[in-house]
C-alpha cells in the first residue's frame, strides 16, 4: 500500500475496514477508510493506474471497471462495496503475451488518441461482447454511451469493437 488514504495501516483502527477483493483474478485483502472510493483503492492502494479518473460525477466513464462482469464507474463506488466481489481493470484484459481482441481492435482501427478514456471504453466494450458476441453498430454505440471520448469522434471506436467481435467469432 502506498500512502494515499491508507497511510500507515493501524490494525484494528476504528475507522478502517478490512475487505477482500479479487482484482484481475488475484485475491487482495486491504484495510480502507469507509469513504475511500473504489477507483482510489485500485489506483493508489493497489497501484493499478490504468483506471483513470475524469469527472467525479459518474458521467465520463474513464474509471469504468467490471465488478462481477458488469461495467461500473469506480469513482462513485466505495471500496467497501467491492468487498467479496470480482473486479476487472484494464490491467486484467489480455495476458502478458497476448492482447485481448478488444485491445487489439482499438489499435488496429485507431480507436484511441490520447488514451485517457481508452481503458474504461475497452472495459465497457468487453462487457458488451461478453453478453452480445455479434453486436450491431447501434448496439455498440448504445453500450459505449456512458463513456466519453473527446479525441476520436467515436467512429473508429465503434469500428474497433466490431473488429474485436469479428475476430472472436473467427470471421
Amino acid at each position, binding site marked *: 500500500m*502506498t*500512502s*494515499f*488514504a491508507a*497511510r500507515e495501516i493501524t490494525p484494528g483502527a476504528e475507522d478502517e475496514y478490512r475487505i477482500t477483493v479479487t482484482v484481475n483474478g488475484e485475491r487482495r485483502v486491504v484495510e480502507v477508510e469507509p*469513504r475511500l472510493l473504489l477507483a482510489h483503492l485500485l*489506483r*493508489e492502494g493497489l497501484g*493499478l*493506474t*490504468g*483506471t*483513470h*479518473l*475524469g*469527472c*467525479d*460525477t459518474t*458521467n*465520463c466513464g*474513464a474509471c469504468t471497471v467490471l465488478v462481477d462482469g458488469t461495467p461500473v464507474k469506480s469513482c462513485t463506488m466505495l471500496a467497501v462495496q467491492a468487498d467479496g466481489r470480482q473486479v476487472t*481493470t*484494464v*490491467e486484467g*484484459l*489480455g495476458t502478458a503475451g497476448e*492482447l485481448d481482441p478488444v*485491445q*487489439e481492435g*482499438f*489499435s*488496429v482501427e*485507431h480507436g*484511441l*488518441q*490520447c*488514451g*485517457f*478514456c*481508452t*481503458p474504461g471504453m*475497452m472495459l465497457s466494450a468487453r462487457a458488451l461482447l461478453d453478453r452480445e458476441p455479434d453486436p450491431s453498430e447501434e448496439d*455498440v*454505440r*448504445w453500450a*459505449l*454511451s*456512458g*463513456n*466519453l*471520448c*473527446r*479525441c*476520436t*469522434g*467515436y*467512429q*473508429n*471506436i*465503434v469500428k474497433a469493437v466490431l473488429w474485436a467481435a469479428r475476430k472472436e467469432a473467427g470471421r
Partner: protein
Amino acid sequence: MTALDETAIGGLGASRRRVEDARFVRGRGHYVDDIHLPGMLHMEILRSPLAHARIVSIDTSKAWEIPGVRLVLTGEMMAQRNLAWMPTLSYDTQAVLATDKVRFQGQEVCVVVADDPYIAKDGCEAIVVEYEALPAIVNPEQAAAPDAPVIRDDKEGQTDNTCYRWAVGDAAATERAFAQADVVSSLKLHYPRSHPSPIECCGSIADYDAGTGKLTVYMTTQAPHIIRAAVALVAELPEHMIRIVSPDIGGGFGNKVPIYPGYVAGILASILLGKPVKWIEDKSGNLSSTGFGRDMYLDAQMALRSDGKILAVRMHAVTDQGAFFADAQPSKFKVGLLHSAFACYDVPVGLITAEGQYTNKAPGGVAYRCSFRVTEAMFFQERMVAAAAADLGIDAAEIRRRNLLTDDRFPHRTAFGFLVDSGQYHKCLDLGLDAIGYEEFKRDQVAARERGRLLGIGISTMTEPLGAGNSREYDILGIKMFDSAELRVHMTGKAILRTGAKTQGQGHETTWAQIVSHELGIPADDVIVEEGDTDTAPFGMGTYASRSTPVAGAAVAMVARKVRAKARKLAAHLLEVSEEDVEWELGRFYVRGAPERGATIQECAAAAYSNMPDGMEPGLENNAYYDPPNLTWPFAVYIVTVEVDPETGVWDVLRVVAVDDCGVRINPMIVEGQIMGGLTEAYAMANMQFQTYDADGNQVGSNYMDYLLPTAWETPGFELHEVVTPCPHHPIGAKGVGECAAVGGPAAFVNAVHDALASTGVRNIDMPVLPDRVWQALQDGRDVSGAPPVRSDS
C-alpha cells in the same frame, strides 16, 4: 539492389499503427496522476462560491488543526513572497490566490496540502472565508455600461472594464465599397463560451529538492518550455534549475497551454515543505477556472453586388474575457487571428474592429482546438455568407463558387494582410457537393417540405492559418514562435528523435518517426521519439493551434537532412569516392554510374562511430530550429444534411461529408482520426456544448451533469474525402489539420438547420442550436439570441 519500399518501412503516407497504443491499450500510459514520488503530499484548492466579492477575512485555524494537514496557503501568504499575482500569456496579470477580491466563481482562494487528498479536501471545508458580495457582471454589455463597477481595480489606471481594443483593415476603402453595394447583408450573433474539456483535468507534481536546489515539475502542459520560462519569471528561480516534464497528456485542446494558479501554489508548497506536492484538479475545478474558448459577439455587414460578388466586409467583435486577460495567443494580435476571416474568398477590402471586456467569469479565451480565434473567424464568415445567400436568393453553393479564390490566384494577399499560398478550392467544393448529392438533395428537400418535413443542407468552406510563426510576426511573451528537433543516430542505425513539441493524442511518436524514415530510409520502427522533458528536449513552443506538423514536423525533416548530409561524407569515405560522386536513394548512398556500389544509412551510422575519415568529428547527430516562412493554409469543405422535427425542434444529422486538403498526409489514418475528432467537436458546439452564467455569475455547466458533451450515441457518422495541394514552403509539403473540422465544421451544422427553417424567415439562432431555440423560432418566426442574461435588478 532495389530501392526501399517507403510504405513498408513506415515512411511518408503509410497508415502506420501507432506506437503509443501499445502502452495505452494496456493501461500503462504515464499520465501525471499516475506518478507517485516518495513522501509525496497532496494539494486541494478552495474556490470562491461568489462571482464578485470583497474578501473580508479568512480563518484557516480549523484547517490547521486537522491531523494530516501540512500547509495552508492564503493570498496574503503568497503576497508575502511576491507570488499573489502572476503574468498571463496576454501581458495581463492573474491572481494566484485572491487577496483583495474574488472576481469569478471558482477562483482560487486558498490551498491546503495534506497527507492525502481526502484530508486536503477536509482542510478546505474547514476554512472560513467571509465575503462582502459585489454586483456581478456577466456579459460585455453590462461591463461596458458607464456605471459598471470596475472589476480590475487592482490595475493601476484601469477606470473601466475595457481590456483591449484592436482594429485591422482599411476603414476608408471599406466605406467606399459599402457605398457602392447593391445589397448590404447584416448579421449579429454570439459564439457561446465553451470549454475544451479534455477528459483528464489539469494537474502537477512540484518536487523541489533542497539538496540540489533543483525544481522538477511534472505537469499537464502542452508547452513545457514556455512554462519553464514563466516559472523562472514568476518564482524567480534560475532557468537551468527548473525542469518541466510533461508526461502523457489525457487530451489538451488548448486547455493545457496556460499557466494556472494550482501549478504556482504547488511549486511554492513544495519549496516550503521540501516534499513533492501533487495537485490534481477535479472536473468542476477544471470547468470553472481554466481556459475556456470563444464567448465572442459579432456585429457584421457584408457589401455585395446583386450577383453575389462580395465587395467588402465589416466586422465588429466583442469578446467576453472573464476576470483576467489570459488568452494564449501571439502577442501582436489582441484577438488572435480573427482577421483570417474571408481568407479563402476574393474580398478586396474589409475592416475588423474588436474590443474585449472584463467580466466576472473565468479567464481564458484560449485557442480551443483552434489557431487563435480562427474558429470564431470561420464561423462568422460562413454564417455571413449563408445569410447573404439567403438575402440575395442565391444558392449557397453558387455564392461560394462566385467568391472562392480560383487556383490561378495564389499567392493571394488578403484584405487583412495574410498571404494565402495554395489550394484547389473549387475542386474541393465540387467533390463535396458531388459526394453529398447536392442537386438531388435540394430536389428531395422541396418534395419533403410539401409533406411537412423540414430538411436542410449546410455548407462551410474555409482556409485557415495554421502553424505559427513565422518569427517576424509571431511571438508569445516575446519568445519567437519557431520549433525544433534533435536527431541522434546510434551506431547500429537506430535513432532517437526529440522535438520541442508535445503530443497529446496526435501521435507524434508515430508520425515523427515516419518523417525520419522518409528522409533517411531508416525504418520508422527503428526511431524512438521523445517529447516533453525540458532537460532533454530542444527548446520549442509546444503543441497547440495545429502547429506541430507545420513547424516541429518541418524541423524533423530539416534535422534529418542535416544528418543525411553528414552521412553522405561518411558514404564517400566508405565507397572511396569523392562526395560529389555519391548519389542518394531512400536508405542508401551509391556511386554515380555504379549503383551496385553503395553504403546503407546503417553502414554510414556504423562508420560514424567506428570508421570515420581523418579529421571528421565522430558521431551522427544534429539539431534544427525551424522558423517557417509562412503559415500553412489547409482548405476544407464540410457539408451537413439535417432533418428538423417541427413539433419538438429536435434536429437529427442525416449525413456529414468532409473534404480536407491538408497537403501531404504523413499518416492518413491519424489525419482522418483528427478530422473525425474535430467534426465531433463541431457537432457538439452546434448542438449542445456551451457554458453560461446566471445573472449572479453562477456558472451553469461546471460539471459533466450540466456541461453536455456528445456520446457515441448522438455523434453522427462521417464521410471523409481528400484533396492534396502540397504546401509550397513546408519541407514535405504538409499543412496543419488537427483543428480544421472543429473550426470549419460548426457553421455547416448550423447552416443546415437554418436552411431547414428557410421558409420561416428566421435568419439566426445562436449556438448551440438547442431544440427549444429551434422550437421557439418555429413558433414566432423570429431570431433567437443565446446571449447571457442581464441582471434582473438593473
